[in-house]
């Protein structure tokens, strides 16, 4: 949204009154919630929080100060300025932040923004993870400051940073222990032979694998060469421009030399694991092995044994179902996610599914301001009901009561408390089961209806992040330990008869499925290890027949080849009986819950309401040459508040070519963009004067003085749809050099637009979904009646997915201006009618259609030189056909082109495009001689 408004602003500067022509798509970052921001000032931090989460902010303040003390010793460095720390009580609130203009995906746990040094962190239901993310981001803050200091001290340019594997690896290494999730990734990479050497790390730039490899590498460096070497890698950063050489002077090994010993070390470390454990593919039956899959649940419908699960196979997350009895199971999409307002996003790895006996599928999606709990009727293939709760922001893992009348689920409320709730379906009323600081998740209602088993950190090891299983007895409303120990116990799943409980535990170093016999007396209960996967098993779910007889089969998610795959494992009963590892819990050990610390009293320097604190984002002077404004010298300033909600832009420049023209070539624009509320708005004033070229008519050269103001409103209906409206008043005094008389006008332009966009993007442009824009506008001269025209813009683009990475993209658009002094549109060039000279086709009316087959061409192109190498990723191919025409009063002809091209994505910010093809002219009746070649930049339409 912010990008859209900024674009609007720039467009105003560029084309002044012709703003009805402004043109864009894009999804919306909707400000659903009006936060009442406050500031907590501690010794080193300014903590921004909102009223409902005060206690959570105090806990975050404690973690932040504790981490600060820890890190200043590690870095032998401190931070000179106060650190702005912006907290949100849930991921959904975090996704509304304006600190960054981009969208925040599900998996992002926080970020550090370099420009103003802001750290933005959501609470995600666990105080342990909250503390971890705070420390992780503070490592970035310290590292950034330390590296800059080292470079400044040695009088070197501060425009370089260590490689991402180091920055992210260190942030993990100095903020958390090596956990079983990290171990899972490394085991899989080593045992399946895809560990990426340090020397080739750019191949996996920005991936989770790179983060974990970075962490493991630094752990190894510390162990093998000494802890102090980590600090020295930063203190020696000035010694070489290549980080490989910094490694050489610090530990005596370049990347290449290090790789030899590091890869050998990994093999020595991980190969012996195969003595006791299995690769998932060796001992389980494969059901779905593409993409990412999670949270399977079994249901038998119309005689078909089906598994329902959440998966992401194409970039969108959906609910799939797959027939277990098919020879080659083919998953089909049951509910499409991330395309509609209702099912805006699934929480892929966080919220399980459950199906009642009568075929009601309960699941959770993000839907507007909060999550929603949906009931889907599998038998009738339709959505049955949806529940939203104003005070419950995030919902998770619904589980049906055996009678199908109630659902238990976990939820994070406005204040960040993560507790269990029961929903009575008939009355739509809620009962809160727990209410404390602990994380409660994965509830599973017992088949006898008497208890709920759930996973929680309410145990002596919870402060270290360990989750145990607990039993909530509904009649007594009390909670008992089911497991206790320094390990994680997750995803409990009851067998149909209530005799067995399957769950996962990492008690021996990797998550595997364990079974507990629940019909034994509590003190005699043992848990037995069912799977021995070398990587990890998650989300076990029992497979049964309608009579309730166990089929001794479990479906589960196994991690292999960097993919979460849906598997099944048979003969569970026999495997339990012959299990070679079992464990009996001692319930008489100390079971005191940990107490979450928080900062209060004198440690809080101040606690006050937030009043906009503005700082500069950009301040620069420049001399530029522009096709419309000519050569100009001036300055631009941009400033915004800490939360990014209010932004101001100041532009001042002069286009004078001689001293005498100075006063009459003075230009200034001031604009304010407000993003803090759901309705975004922007307004500003401008004064432009100077010699101009008319972009739509190259022969038109004129002097113009224009001043006025504008106001734009944008209201997002949802993440995918919005309406916009704007008005501009501009006094234009134009002196065209080839005309005898000057033209004066007081122009008023108004417009109304509807924009829809649910497209999914690949490396060079959209691959799925569709985009639509409709605009109506009217421009008139209210003083002299010199100008009066209306504008219609209609643009529709559709992307038909052909495979995971290929698509057929189509667009058709019509731009229509009609009336007195109606402005011309233009096209031609790499962005629209390819093959034709850029902007060479002009007219007050214009239409264009394009069709393009997009496909992967080269995934990785590496070029080695004696002094090093460079590599390019994501080179895409395209076959295209375009047609269109432009005219003022009488239609002239239709032009077109066909051809092929390649697109190269550079760092995710720039796409280089090369096209070759044939132009078609005379109403598409004749190919022109020769081939055209076009090289330009920009994303695919």
């Amino acid at each position, binding site marked *: 949204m912010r990008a859209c408004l900024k674009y609007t602003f720039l467009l105003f500067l560029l084309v002044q009154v012709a703003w009805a022509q402004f043109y864009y798509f894009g999804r919306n970052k909707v400000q659903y919630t009006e936060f009442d921001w406050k500031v907590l000032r501690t010794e080193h931090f300014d903590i921004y929080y909102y009223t409902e989460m005060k206690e959570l902010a105090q806990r975050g303040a404690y973690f932040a100060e504790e981490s600060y003390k820890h890190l200043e*010793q590690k870095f032998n460095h401190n931070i000179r300025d106060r650190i702005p720390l912006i907290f949100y009580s849930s991921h959904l609130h975090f996704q509304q932040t304006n600190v960054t203009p981009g969208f925040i995906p599900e998996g992002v746990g926080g970020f550090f923004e370099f420009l103003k040094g802001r750290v933005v962190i959501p609470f995600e239901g666990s105080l342990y993870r909250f503390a971890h993310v705070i420390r992780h981001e503070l490592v970035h803050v310290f590292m950034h400051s330390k590296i800059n200091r080292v470079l400044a001290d040695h009088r070197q340019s501060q425009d370089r940073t260590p490689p991402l594997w180091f920055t992210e690896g260190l942030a993990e290494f100095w903020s958390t222990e090596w956990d079983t999730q990290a171990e899972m990734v490394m085991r899989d990479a080593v045992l399946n032979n895809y560990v990426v050497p340090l020397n080739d790390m750019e191949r996996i730039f920005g991936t989770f694998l790179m983060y974990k490899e970075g962490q493991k590498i630094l752990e190894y460096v510390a162990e093998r060469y000494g802890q102090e070497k980590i600090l020295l890698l930063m203190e020696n950063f000035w*010694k070489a421009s290549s980080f490989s050489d910094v490694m050489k002077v610090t530990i005596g090994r370049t990347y290449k030399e290090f790789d030899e010993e590091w890869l050998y070390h990994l093999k020595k470390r991980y190969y012996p694991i195969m003595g006791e454990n299995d690769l998932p593919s060796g001992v389980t039956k494969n059901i779905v092995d593409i993409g990412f899959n999670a949270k399977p649940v079994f249901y038998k419908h119309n005689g078909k044994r089906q598994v329902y699960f959440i998966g992401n196979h194409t970039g969108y997350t959906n609910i799939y179902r797959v027939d277990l009895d098919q020879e080659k199971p083919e998953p089909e999409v049951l509910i499409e996610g991330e395309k509609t307002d209702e099912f805006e996003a699934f929480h892929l790895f966080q919220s399980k599914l459950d199906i009642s006996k009568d075929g009601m599928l309960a699941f959770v999606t993000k839907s507007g301001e909060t999550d929603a709990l949906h009931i889907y009727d599998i038998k009738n293939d339709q959505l049955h009901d949806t529940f939203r709760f104003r005070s419950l922001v995030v919902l998770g893992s619904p589980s049906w009561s055996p009678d199908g009348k109630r659902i238990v689920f976990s939820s994070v409320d406005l204040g960040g408390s993560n507790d269990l709730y029961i929903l009575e379906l008939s009355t739509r009323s809620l009962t809160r089961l727990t209410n404390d600081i602990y994380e409660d998740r994965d509830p599973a209602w017992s088949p006898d209806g008497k208890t709920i088993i759930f996973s929680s950190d309410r145990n002596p090891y919870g402060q270290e992040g360990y989750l145990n299983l607990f039993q909530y007895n509904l009649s007594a409303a009390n909670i008992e330990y089911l497991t206790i120990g320094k390990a994680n116990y997750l995803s409990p799943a009851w067998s149909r008869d209530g005799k067995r409980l399957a769950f996962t535990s990492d008690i021996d170093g990797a998550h595997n499925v364990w079974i507990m016999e629940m019909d034994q007396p509590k003190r005699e209960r043992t848990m037995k290890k069912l799977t021995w996967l070398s990587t990890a098993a998650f989300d076990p779910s029992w497979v049964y027949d309608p009579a309730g007889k166990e089929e001794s089969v479990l479906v589960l998610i196994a991690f292999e080849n960097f993919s979460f795959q849906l598997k099944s494992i048979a003969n569970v009963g026999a495997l339990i009986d012959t299990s070679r590892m079992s464990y009996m819990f001692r319930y008489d050990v100390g079971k005191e819950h940990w107490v979450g610390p928080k900062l209060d009293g004198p440690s809080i320097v101040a606690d006050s309401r937030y009043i906009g604190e503005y700082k500069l984002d950009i301040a620069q002077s420049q001399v530029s040459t522009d096709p419309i404004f000519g050569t100009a010298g001036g300055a631009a300033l941009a400033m915004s508040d800490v939360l990014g909600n209010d932004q101001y832009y100041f532009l001042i420049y002069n286009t004078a070519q001689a001293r005498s023209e100075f006063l009459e070539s003075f230009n200034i624009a001031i604009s304010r963009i407000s993003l803090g509320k759901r309705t975004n708005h922007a307004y500003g004033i401008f004064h432009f004067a100077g010699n101009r070229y008319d972009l739509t008519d190259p022969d038109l050269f004129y002097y113009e003085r224009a001043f006025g103001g504008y106001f734009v409103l944008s209201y997002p209906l949802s993440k995918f749809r919005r309406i916009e409206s704007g008005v501009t008043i501009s006094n234009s005094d134009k002196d065209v050099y080839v005309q005898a008389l000057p033209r004066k006008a007081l122009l008023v332009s108004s417009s109304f637009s509807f924009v829809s966009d649910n497209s999914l993007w690949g490396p060079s442009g959209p691959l799925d979904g569709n985009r639509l824009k409709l605009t109506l506008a009217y421009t008139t001269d209210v003083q002299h009646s010199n100008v009066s025209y209306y504008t219609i813009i209609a643009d529709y683009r559709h992307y038909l997915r052909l495979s995971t990475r290929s698509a057929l993209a189509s667009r058709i658009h019509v731009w229509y201006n009609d009336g007195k002094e109606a402005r011309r549109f233009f096209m031609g060039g790499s962005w629209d009618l390819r093959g034709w000279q850029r902007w060479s086709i002009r007219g007050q009316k214009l239409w264009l259609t394009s069709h393009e087959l997009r496909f992967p061409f080269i995934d990785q192109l590496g070029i080695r030189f004696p002094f090093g190498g460079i590599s390019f990723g994501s080179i895409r191919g395209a076959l295209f056909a375009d047609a269109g025409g432009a005219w003022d009063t009488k239609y002239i002809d239709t032009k077109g082109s066909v051809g092929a091209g390649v697109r190269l994505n550079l760092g995710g910010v720039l796409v280089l495009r090369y096209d070759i093809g044939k132009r078609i002219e005379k109403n598409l009746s004749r190919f022109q001689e020769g081939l055209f070649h076009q090289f330009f930049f920009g994303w695919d339409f």
Partner: protein
Amino acid sequence: MKRSLLRAIGKVAIVVAILASFSGCAGIRIARPLRAAPYDWLMYGGATSRVNQSRSAVTPPLEEVWEYNAMGGIHGSPLVRDSVVLVVTLHGEIQAVNLTNGERIGYMVLESAVEGTPVWDGLYAYVASALGTETLACIGLRNAERRWVGQYGPIETSPLLFGELLYVTTLNGILYCLNKSDGTELWRFEVGEKEKRKPIRSSPASDGAVIVFGSDDGFIYAVERTSGTLRWKHQTGASVFATPIVTRELCIVGSLDGSVYAIQVSSGKLSWKYDTGSKIYGAAAASDTMVYVGSADGRLHALRIDSGERVWSFSARSVISSAPLVAGDILYVGSLDRTLYALRRQTGEKLWQYEAPGRIKVSPVIWGDLLLLTSEDRLLIALRPVQQ
């Protein structure tokens, strides 16, 4: 009145004469030997024992006299003699500064960044650089020429001059003993075989009989000063970055394992060990009976030299990574919290503090009635007691 006026005129005349003997900015030219004073600060730690004890005392409160911008980071202590200050920078320069007014007298470009403190010996300075080939140089201050240069590998420590012998520890893990007049190597001591050798970031100190230093391998070494043979070595729990001090027949040094070790110089026997609970990056300072050492958690620990018993401790707001300075009954210590603290040496009571513009990573130095403080952001600041 007349006498003080004459004295002032005399001082000015001396300064003018000295300044007249310098020429230009690019290059350092000191035409005649400077006058020695007992409180001259000519090497890291102020003496070969590195005890960071000043022979003159300045009593707080202090006020700023001048501020000098060295244009590059400073990690080495300033050296002072007779109205001239020598400063080395991380962008590879040795600069001469007028002590009276803080104006630059001249500078000379070196091989690369200088992390340690040079040794000032008459009209020569011995300077070690962190990168390059000719990393050790004897600079003639009279004619701005290199008297000799040596290829001893990267050096991030402060050389030690004892009589005619110059000692230097290197990142290649070697202690060199050189002839100061021509830089020829007399002997070397290596901390392990070549492949396993760890760098030395700890500067050498000496009691006259042995040279002591710490190493990244976690050992504290004592080597016979004249022969280079190992007398003893003592293992700590982590790398030793700090420079040892030698006092009352003890070698005292902190390790990154958080402990202060006091080892008998003669035998290598551990006399006492004190755990600070945090990393120790900087050297200690010693008075007759006490040793003072800062730790990364911002605490300054005052310990009895003979027993290691803690007498008092003081908390700064951030890391203390440089050695304190003993100046009579006052103890000065700087912290990354940008504050120079003046404490009562016997009790740890805070008497005064000075907020510097930047973090303080280098020990202060006292010459006469001036305290020279190095602050991050390239500054050298001269402070003097407030005139009552």
